């Protein structure tokens, strides 16, 4: 599906969606901003809808913008080969979002990684535990911008 | 499973095993195929590739002169803080102050041999040497001063 068709189709599904121009312009991907509350239902539609068929979540990550967090979901469709980037703003103090690991199984590991690196709490995640950090980890989330570890981080 | 299939299974299995044994048996008897390099013994003949990145060195000519201007481009290019340029000010014959290096400190223990410093050097003062036997008993020996004592910058290098 071409980017414009994709935008129309998505606006049909989610009228509140706002498209971000400029981001990912070099890749030509449609970038979409939305609210965390609608995410689970919308994600289900993205996968189920036969004309969208976003069945491949190839990247899931989070960006710390110091004022808020942004979840970034990069989606691909193995049938139509169109791409979509979904961005969801989260509250930095109490980040919470629905887990999509039931829809895309790969999200399970990626969400666990984001959980410990950024402290995002994924609701209804089947197994939200520390994956990379050692058990008994105390302290802040390493990939947040205010993380400081004077012992292990060497300032050059 | 029919009896015919049973027998053909056994025959195929045995023949596939024998093919593998033929190959290994070939190498057992053909010692010319051995590829071992007897490393410490072949030091005399061992030749490293000319671009091999062993460690950063600063070449000096016969007058004990190098090409380093002390511009700190290598220090800035280095991702790990491997290079530290300590500068001083020389007085030129005309009586002007001129920046020159006092010491170019190189931490081999931090170096990842990424070649970025050599790429960034505007006057080709540092190059990669082909040495590779870097082990020492004392870690402090890995911190090296690249310019030789009493050396000075070559004429005409800016």
């Amino acid at each position, binding site marked *: 599906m071409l980017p414009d068709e994709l935008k129309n189709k998505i606006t049909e599904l989610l009228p509140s969606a706002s498209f971000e121009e400029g981001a990912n312009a070099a890749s030509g991907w449609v970038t979409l901003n939305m609210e965390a509350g609608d995410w689970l239902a919308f994600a289900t539609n993205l996968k189920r809808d036969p004309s969208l068929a976003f069945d491949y979540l190839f990247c899931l990550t989070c960006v710390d913008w110091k004022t808020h967090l942004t979840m970034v979901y990069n989606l691909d469709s193995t049938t139509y080969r169109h791409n979509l980037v979904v961005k969801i703003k989260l509250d930095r103090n109490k980040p919470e979002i629905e887990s999509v690991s039931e829809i895309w199984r790969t999200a399970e590991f990626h969400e666990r990684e984001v959980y410990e690196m950024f402290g995002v709490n994924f609701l209804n995640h089947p197994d939200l535990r520390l994956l990379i950090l050692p058990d008994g980890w105390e302290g802040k989330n390493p990939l947040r911008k205010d993380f400081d570890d004077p012992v292990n981080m060497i300032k050059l | 499973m029919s009896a015919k299939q049973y027998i053909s299974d056994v025959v195929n299995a045995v023949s596939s095993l024998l093919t593998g044994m033929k190959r290994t048996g070939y*190498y*057992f008897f053909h010692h010319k195929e*051995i*590829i*071992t390099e007897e490393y410490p013994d072949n030091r005399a003949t061992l030749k490293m590739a000319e671009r091999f990145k062993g460690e950063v060195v600063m070449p000096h000519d016969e007058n004990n002169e190098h090409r380093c201007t002390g511009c700190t481009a290598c220090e800035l290019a280095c991702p790990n803080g491997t290079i530290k340029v300590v500068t001083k000010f020389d007085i030129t014959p005309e009586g002007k102050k001129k920046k020159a290096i006092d010491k170019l400190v190189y931490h081999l223990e931090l170096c990842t041999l990424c070649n970025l410093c050599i790429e960034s050097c505007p006057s080709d003062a540092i190059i990669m040497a082909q040495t590779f036997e870097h082990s020492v008993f004392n870690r402090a020996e890995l911190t090296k001063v690249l310019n030789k004592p009493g050396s000075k910058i070559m004429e005409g290098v800016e």
Partner: protein
Amino acid sequence: MWSFSNIANQLHYWLNDHFSPTLTLIIEMVLAGVAVIGLFAGLGLVLVIMERKVSAWIQLRLGPNRVGPKGMLQSLADTFKLLLKEGMTPSGADKIMFNVAPFIAMIVAMLLLAPIAFAKDFQLWDLNIGVLYVSAISSVSVISILMAGWSSNNKYSLMGAMRSGAQIVSYELSAGLSVLAVIVMTGSLQVSDIIHSQADGWWIFKGHIPMFIAFVTFIIAVTAETNRAPFDLAEAESELTAGFHTEYSGMKFALFFLAEYVNVFIVCALGATLFLGGWMPFHIGNWEGFNHVMDYIPSSVWFFGKTFFLIWLIMWFRWTFPRLRIDQLLNLEWKYLLPISMVNLLLVTLMAILKWHF
């Protein structure tokens, strides 16, 4: 030609002349024990260096070449290293069983050396049930592995031991059946009888195809019984790290290691005795001239030549094949080797009754 029996007899008479009969017996037993221990250690060293050289050449390497001439003293140096190492016992282990297990493995390997005929008239104990003795004693080795695995208090060890138990018990069957093929032909369980029955040709040639099949089954079964690759599931490095001897170190580990190699030697010696005529030179029917030439080669050379050929074959297997999975291992035994060797035994029996062999 000189033979070992002359030396042994002369020693016996000399001892009898100087000591009382009881003391003579004791001295002779001590001498035999020393000989066996020496052989045990010597064989271990030779086989380890052989394995390392064979594997190196197959793998395009040079192998050990630093200690002694052409690296031949490498395994001796390794033994010294192992002797000097601390033999640790894990704190959760069953101490007695843990420490006894390697000695059982060693004792079994030593006992098995008794009925092997190393050369003409050179045999420690030519008992009338020699082959049965070997089969019976070699089954005991599984006990040492189970003891080691259980007492280590380590899950890898336990799994390795359990696998080994299942494996040895099942492969004993087809090994036994293929040994039985020779016994049916010979009609005797005595090692010297079996060797003498091959004076006019080895069983592998005299017994047509069924005997060859029995030989192949025997080799496969004993490879499995000695826990050698491709049947090394008890150790299975990439799955169970080191299997039943994960927790062993120092000399206790070395005893397991040596016992494995001596077991390989014994089963190969048995294979050479049963199928390739033991120390009997290569004879063809009634070609008197040819047979006479062959007799000039000493019998011990014949025996060790054949045995080391079989050992080399087993090493060749090890460095060529990947490992089987536990269920495939048991499938191979129960679905392929056992039926084949049973049918084969019937054929051999038929041949023996009808005197079809040469």
